């Protein structure tokens, strides 16, 4: 069997192909540029949900602070774009031309030193991943090495999200404050607000997402993935078997942070600004629900979950604004009470058997026994 086939089972290859087809062909043909841009925005949350599947569904680590990493990734990208659009010519009316407008309003007369490297696109690409991962590393080393987990971890990540929000809002001379970093125009001289650019970003986003999906699958089917599950269900036994549980947790948490950061950067590109309202407690918990609705154990589900919840939010809040909070609240309750495995669970129960039967009819693949429930 070739390595590629080993990565996914046949059935999963089909799901992957269907997902890729929907994202790369169906959506762009069915929707106009405006809707497609919206979907692109939803997909940036799918990165976060994907990370959460790994770290929460498989690793048992619930982070209520994914907004931190989403935000940091987004801010790194926004800083680069802001510097690019703040040329001395474009900002000639300021008292100090050449620095971002919000700095000028806050009496800064020169660019803070830690903004300087963001003139470089290469550095920015590096920072988008490195900054959030570094923070995730610090948090997770401090916590997991001391065997803190579960609800404590959730609460601490939540507190860190709160701190970061207050900090960003309070340091408005350096961060743009509550308005965030706005009015981003070009990327390497190319107008990011044009319809053309939006198409390009959408496809970039899809490509990155599918890439991340494969990476996540790689983790899932590897020995490490199995260890994660073992660890989630009986941490002590894994530890007694001689594994350093903390290192696994640190790795998976950092990986989830990296996914979120990519999502954040793509978000900035597609939406055109970044603000502290995506960092705080409320957005961070909402990100968990994307994952939970899709199915906390399904990497495909994460993507459908992010799409579904966000689409529902847009349509429902358009037609019945009062109902939206009820629906959202109900969703939180339903995913823990009624369908804990989310959409993916429903799919696995009701539709997958049909798919398998269909496959066996066409003799595409042999019917295999379903994997253990923990999958």
């Amino acid at each position, binding site marked *: 069997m070739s390595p590629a086939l080993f990565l996914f089972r046949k059935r999963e290859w089909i799901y992957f192909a269907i997902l890729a087809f929907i994202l790369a062909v169906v959506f762009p043909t069915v929707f106009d540029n405006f809707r497609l841009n919206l979907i692109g925005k939803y997909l940036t949350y799918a990165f976060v949900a994907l990370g959460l599947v790994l770290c929460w569904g498989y690793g048992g680590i619930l982070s209520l602070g994914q907004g931190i990493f989403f935000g940091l990734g987004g801010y790194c990208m926004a800083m680069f774009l802001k510097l690019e659009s703040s040329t001395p010519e474009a900002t000639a009316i300021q008292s100090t031309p050449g620095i971002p407008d919000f700095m000028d309003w806050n009496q800064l007369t020169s660019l803070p030193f830690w903004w300087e490297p963001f003139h470089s696109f290469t550095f920015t690409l590096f920072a988008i991943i490195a900054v959030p991962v570094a923070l995730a590393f610090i948090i997770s080393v401090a916590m997991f090495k001391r065997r803190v987990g579960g609800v404590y971890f959730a609460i601490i990540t939540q507190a860190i999200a709160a*701190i970061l929000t207050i*900090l960003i809002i*309070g340091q408005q001379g350096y961060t743009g404050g509550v308005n965030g970093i706005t009015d981003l125009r070009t990327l390497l001289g190319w107008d990011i607000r044009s319809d053309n650019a939006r198409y390009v970003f959408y496809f970039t986003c899809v490509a990155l997402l599918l890439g991340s999906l494969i990476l996540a699958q790689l983790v899932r089917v590897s020995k490490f993935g199995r260890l994660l599950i073992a660890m989630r269900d009986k941490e002590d036994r894994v530890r007694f078997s001689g594994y350093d549980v903390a290192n696994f947790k640190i790795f998976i948490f950092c990986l989830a942070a990296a996914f979120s950061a990519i999502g954040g950067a793509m978000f900035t590109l597609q939406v055109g600004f970044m603000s502290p309202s995506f960092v705080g*407690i409320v957005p961070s918990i909402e990100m968990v629900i994307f994952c939970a609705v899709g199915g906390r154990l399904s990497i495909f589900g994460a993507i459908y979950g992010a799409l579904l919840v966000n689409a529902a939010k847009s349509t429902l809040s358009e037609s019945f604004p009062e109902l939206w*909070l009820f629906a959202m609240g109900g969703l*939180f309750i339903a995913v*823990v009470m009624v369908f804990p495995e989310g959409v993916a669970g429903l799919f696995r129960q009701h539709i997958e058997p049909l798919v398998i039967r269909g496959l066996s009819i066409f003799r595409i693949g042999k019917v295999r026994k379903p994997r253990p429930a923990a999958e």
Partner: protein
Amino acid sequence: MIGDYTYTEFTSILAMQGFSGLTLFSVFVLMALGLAIIFGQMGVINMAHGEFMILGAYMTYLCSHFFSEYLPSLFSIYFFFAMILAFAASFLLGMLVEWGLIRFLYRRPLDTLLATWGVSLILQQVYRSVFGAREVGVTLPDWLMGSIALTDIIEIPINGLFVMGLTFLITIGVYLAMFRSKWGKSMRAVVQNRTMAGAVGINTKMVDRLTFGLGCGIAGIAGSAFTMIGSTGPTAGQLYIVDTFLIVVFGGAGSLIGTIASAFTISQAQSTIEFFLSGSMAKVLTLLTVVGILMLRPQGLFTLKIRR
């Protein structure tokens, strides 16, 4: 002269800041006590805690309207009725939530977190539909407002004293309930060994329900007291949730003394830092310190033992 201030001014600063710190301490204890019971004893993360507080606040608001309409002669003491009503309403709603939701999730703490977050969203929308999106003002009887002037600088706010007294009474009450009453015994028995407790004839389900209800009821009283110092609006509850959880976790879950000690430490630290630094930075510093210490000492200040 000390810094910019004279000696008398300096002592006044100390006195007043000390008092602010104590008020903040009382507020923190009130916020955290209910949560400490629910989280510490039952291991349930109740993200809707803030909304239960706001329920108490809205009950106080209704009460103030009722009394000023129909019983103006009793208006000066309506607040006591309001607190009872606030407790009752939150207690009953708490029991309802336990019955409908929490009891299915005892073994899944992370799931209770999500489910109660859902409850909090629903409650927010209910408040918005019933009471309107705007904040409502609660009229307080005159004797609760104003202050006692000790010197020309030092003035002690009466509502601060009231909150302190209330906190003291409730803490004593909770202590008696937990360590001196039959229910308290049952509750501790259930926490320590559910099966054994059941075997000796304790109705563990009822104990759970009462415990959860009690925690929510205390939140209701806290909310009622907060109408004196804070705002009453559909989303006001969210403002408290992070602080409250940090206090409980910092104190060490399961330990009432720990919660009180942690509320004391955090409130004194915050109020001192606030005096010397600007408000926002004080908040960031306090939170960072707490998180930092928690990373070094995850079990919190006081701890019985870590249960998983």
